[in-house]
């Protein structure tokens, strides 16, 4: 057991994966000598050499497209896109190929690869460096999408993603890379992809979120208990695809009220899908409309105003109260 932050935990998972499985390669812009602009690949080039830790030319379609080729050939590429806002350059490779090879070849050609996308706002970054658009990939059949929320599950999910036989988008909530530390066990852990976790128990309202927003949700849940005496249950999705509908509806069946939180834009966001599933599965248990606390349907503002865009504990609390008093 050692205490570490999320950046270190992800780094640890990469190191372990490179060490235990010679098929694993790590590639991306500046992941080698520079050790990644967030230093997530620290120490990897030195230890594993430039055939396994690969600085690529500056071309995202190239990174994803060649990763697909490598995965097909039997490697296990873990591709870093420097910031999620640049994954759009590779969109056609992800949509038309990574997500489809297994299906179109009836399982003969498969693409076991991981795409690491540092995502989200809140770090006073430049334009295009604070994107959160999980929906693009959730609406793309054939991918899996995971989003860790803390050091321990970050490491475990990355191992799961690397071991998964299918392409996995691994969103890294960069705002909390170094926000807090957790005990991470020495032996390698995995977490089942597609399984949510109830990270706080409650009976009166269900808060559903993932990634960096989860911290805000937990804070709001504390405030709700302290200030209003209301116990909120909090579900950490961890996987966006497959979505763990059962854990969500089990909780809402119990509480009858729900608030879904993410920083991505609202329109067709993950929250819309959660609302639709709740509606389909436990309609009659609902005591109030499910609320969405999300980014607004504008590009995330430049950093002077990004705080107002990102759901924070106050906004979540406000939505909880509205939902509770409906």
């Amino acid at each position, binding site marked *: 057991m050692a205490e570490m932050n999320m950046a270190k935990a992800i780094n640890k998972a990469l190191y372990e994966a490179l060490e235990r499985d010679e098929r694993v390669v790590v590639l991306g812009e500046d992941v080698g000598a520079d050790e990644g602009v967030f230093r997530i690949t620290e120490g990897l080039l030195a230890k594993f050499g430039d*055939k396994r830790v690969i600085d690529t030319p500056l071309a995202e379609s190239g990174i994803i497209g060649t990763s*697909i080729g*490598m995965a097909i050939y039997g*490697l296990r590429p873990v591709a870093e896109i420097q910031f999620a806002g640049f994954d759009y350059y590779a969109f056609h490779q992800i949509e038309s190929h990574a997500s489809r090879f297994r299906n179109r*070849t009836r399982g003969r050609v498969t693409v076991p690869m991981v795409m690491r996308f540092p995502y989200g706002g809140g770090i006073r970054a430049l334009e295009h460096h604070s994107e959160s658009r999980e929906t693009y990939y959730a609406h793309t059949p*054939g991918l899996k999408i995971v989003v860790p929320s803390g050091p321990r599950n970050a490491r475990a999910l990355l191992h799961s993603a690397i071991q998964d036989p299918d392409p996995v988008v691994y969103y890294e909530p960069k705002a909390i890379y170094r926000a807090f530390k957790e005990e991470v066990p020495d032996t390698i852990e995995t977490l089942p992809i597609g399984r949510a976790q109830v990270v706080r128990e409650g009976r009166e309202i269900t808060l559903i979120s993932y990634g960096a927003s989860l911290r805000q949700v937990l804070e709001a849940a504390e405030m709700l208990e302290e200030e209003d005496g209301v116990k909120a249950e909090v579900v950490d999705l961890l996987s966006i695809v497959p979505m763990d509908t059962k854990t969500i509806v089990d909780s809402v069946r119990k509480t009858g009220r729900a608030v879904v939180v993410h920083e991505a834009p609202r329109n067709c966001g993950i929250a819309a899908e959660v609302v639709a599933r709740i509606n389909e599965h436990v309609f009659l248990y609902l005591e109030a409309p499910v609320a969405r606390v999300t980014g607004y349907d504008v590009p995330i503002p430049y950093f002077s105003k990004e705080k107002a865009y990102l759901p924070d504990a106050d906004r979540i609390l406000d939505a909880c109260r509205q939902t509770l008093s409906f």
Partner: protein
Amino acid sequence: MPKKPIKLPENIEYLSILDENAKVDKELEPKLSADDLKTMYRYMVLARRGDERMLNLQRQGRIGTFPQSSGHEAVSMGSVYALEKSDWHVPAYREFAGMLYRGWPLETMFLYWGGFEEGAVPPEGVNDLPICVPVGSQLLHAAGIGMAMRFKEEKKVVLTYFGDGSSSEGDFHEALNFASVFNAPVVFVCQNNQYAISVPLARQMKCETIAQRAVSYGMPGVKVDGNDVLAMYAATAAAVERARAGGGPTLIEGLTYRMTPHTTSDDPKRYRSEEEMKQWANKDSLIRFARYLEDKGVLDGDARKKLHEEIDEEIKAAVKRFEEQAQSEELLNPLRMFDYLYADTPPDLDEQREELKRFLAKKGKLPASEAGKEQAHTGRERG
């Protein structure tokens, strides 16, 4: 040196061996055995006749729209013949000859254009990727495969294809750049048929040749008479050998002509003259190659006729197998659409499968193989 020309690389060349009149350049003639030559010819004819048969199937509504390949046999066959079985082949969609040679059954090709994913399944042991429709994108897969070979220090090679029009896509640039930076053993072959559907080369690009684009990647470039299967073979064999020895990628441009519409729903009269089509028909690689084989005593007129008959029988049998499969309950079972997306189908997708299954059952359309396996409840709750 305040102002001076920059010295450009000298490895951009033009190659032709067997000319339009079937005259061969003895010095450059590749050393291929009679069997080699017959095999190449065989698959070129199989592709040509198969293409014609497919057109027929398409006209009868038994397969869908497809891009014909007549005219592209020499570029495909000449290059693919330079590969070992353990090498990789990453086609676009006009490498019919090459795919057949590599081991794709004819009926699999029919299935692909007949609207069945089963047509995209590489046969066991065949190191090919399936047909790729989004143009240019496959070049990156080939580059990635080549990079993997390099990282694993294997002495293998990847051969991949693209059209002249497709060389305008950004992925073309990224693929050639990645391959060159990582010194990957990739041979990039352009099927330059001079049109991107209706747009002639001069409106796609302003440079004289596609081969010269190799200058951007520090790799050799060769422009080849793409109706000359010997030159295509020689150029590719040299590139394959270099790649295998660690010399990195090569760009090969085969200049040819599509003898048919772009696809079965295209009307080339809108953008190509009859005269141009006729001119190019005269350059047909098959006629030229047949004469060469005859001149060389490898395949005389009678043997050729016999070969053509065999091939027609082979096609006939393949059509039959295709029809059987295309009408089989197994391949027509719509529930198959859920069964291959992930290694393990997640619960929500299973639920959708059940949803469709219940619906089909209600309508009396459930395939027999699926019957009796229905789940009882809907997974939804009335509370």
